[in-house]
């Protein structure tokens, strides 16, 4: 669990670098709320509070928009801990990924707070060549405001990269793909000076933490590979066969937090299947649901719904795989004898 916290540090840094110190405060509020809820239930069960609650708190906060209102953070974190973890018996017994369930709940309850406006990020070291996804009329206020957009320090000197409504936009990479507008170039997606949820804009920083999880085997390798490879392959295939709205394999995989979900969310060892074949199926299921929901549903948050759906089928996948093995095991000696 400590390793997961360590692996989120690059993303946490990215959040502060691009969107200001408010992000850190959001993470702190989410963790504090989660801790209080967990403590109340653990006291009743007479169990110690585990550090897993901080993993949930951090992961939950990192997939919120930088301008998220405080009450939404608190309600979401409380829902995540109470209704998707504690009612099932606490640590290690949850069926749904708590962070994603919490986010899904506030996504449905407070749609405006979570989807309507996105803070423009600080430019940081990398000036983005495409200005397509920036609000043009916001430019004067943007440069005249507290943000010096060309500073190498990014938003490190500010509380929030969106001090006023001028620095807000409604466009995110996934939204752009959905409406058929040009997608930000790959270098921008890698660096992460784009609009989006605070901790998951930069594919490079996610990969840094994610590869650490991958190499130290903290996260399950089968799931990561199954999710990412299936998604890449399906996107490449459908771009070739169908064309728009599909825009090639790389942009949807690198953008909009897909990698963050694949490395940090899908690999939650409690809510994922326990069998090898089950994990492969689980990963493929996530990728397929993400693809369908992102491209065809009215919501852009494909990965979130896909993970919840895959979570709910994880136990039955495990059941099916073990039943299959049971059936095969007695059959094989029978045929040879």
């Amino acid at each position, binding site marked *: 669990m400590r390793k997961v916290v360590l692996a989120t540090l690059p993303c946490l840094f990215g959040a502060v670098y691009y969107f200001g110190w408010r992000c850190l405060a959001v993470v702190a509020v989410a963790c504090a709320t989660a801790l209080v809820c967990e403590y109340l239930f653990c006291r009743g069960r007479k169990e110690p509070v585990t550090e897993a609650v901080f993993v949930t708190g951090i992961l939950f906060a990192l997939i919120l928009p930088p301008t998220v209102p405080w009450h939404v953070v608190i309600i979401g974190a409380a829902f995540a801990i109470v209704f998707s973890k504690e009612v099932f018996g606490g640590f290690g017994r949850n069926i749904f990924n708590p962070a994603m369930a919490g986010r*899904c709940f506030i996504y449905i309850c407070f749609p405006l707070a979570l989807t309507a406006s996105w803070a423009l990020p600080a430019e940081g070291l990398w000036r983005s060549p495409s200005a397509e996804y920036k609000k043009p009329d916001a430019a004067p206020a943007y440069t005249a405001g507290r943000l010096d957009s060309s500073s190498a320090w990014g938003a490190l000197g500010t509380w929030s990269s969106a001090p006023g409504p001028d620095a807000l936009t409604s466009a995110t990479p996934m939204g752009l793909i959905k409406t058929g507008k040009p997608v930000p170039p790959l270098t921008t997606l890698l660096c992460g000076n784009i609009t989006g949820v605070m901790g998951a804009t930069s594919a490079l920083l996610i990969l840094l933490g994610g590869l650490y999880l991958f190499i130290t085997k903290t996260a399950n390798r089968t799931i990561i590979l199954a999710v990412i490879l299936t998604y890449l392959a399906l996107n490449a295939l459908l771009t070739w066969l169908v064309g728009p709205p599909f825009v090639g394999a790389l942009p949807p995989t690198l953008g909009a937090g897909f990698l963050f979900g694949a490395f940090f969310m899908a690999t939650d060892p409690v809510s994922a299947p326990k069998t090898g074949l089950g994990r492969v199926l689980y990963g493929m299921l996530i990728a397929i649901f993400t693809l369908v929901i992102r491209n065809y549903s009215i919501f852009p948050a494909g990965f979130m719904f896909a993970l919840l759906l895959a979570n709910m089928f994880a136990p039955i996948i495990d059941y099916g795989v073990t039943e299959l093995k049971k059936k095969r095991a007695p059959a094989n000696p029978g045929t040879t004898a």
Partner: protein
Amino acid sequence: MNLSHEFGSALVVCFAAIFTGNILLTTFLGMCSFLSVSREVKTAVGLGTAVVFVMTCTTILNWAMYWLVLVPLQIEFYRFILFIIVIAAFVQFIEMVIERYSPPLYYSLGIFLPLITVNCAILGAALFMVIRKYTFIETIGYGFGSGAGWMLAIVAMAGIRQKLAVNRIPQGLQGPGITLIIAGLMALGFIGFTGVLQAQ
């Protein structure tokens, strides 16, 4: 409208009934048996199969009854009574046939067949079929899709509850309480399919 177009739209209606408009998780019909018979995967699969079969057959029968009998006679307001009679009669008939020709299947299904008579999802499917004015081929797709969606939800729920059996659920929430919370979280996931396919 040619036949291939008809089959295409039936397929769309079928998938929409499974995912976008899952009868259990978006309209919350058929909750009673969903809550009581989802403790084990095996029984859930049994009941689910029975629901798929009965739902497909009764929506077809009810379609014929509605459009060929009630509408020409202009007594559409009798549809509630008629649909319930058709469903009950069909289930009774099937029960007798199975008992006569396949006693093992009859005993393995046990209580499930009579239970289906009072499953509101079956009647709900018949009424939706009327409201949305499905054609005959679309009705076949809709009946099968609704049944399959119901089965998918109850089997997934049974898997979850089997896994939960060893957990220490808070005392007041054991049984229906935790099942309703899980159903709510499942419905939260199914919201994601909104707009994927439109079932009219």
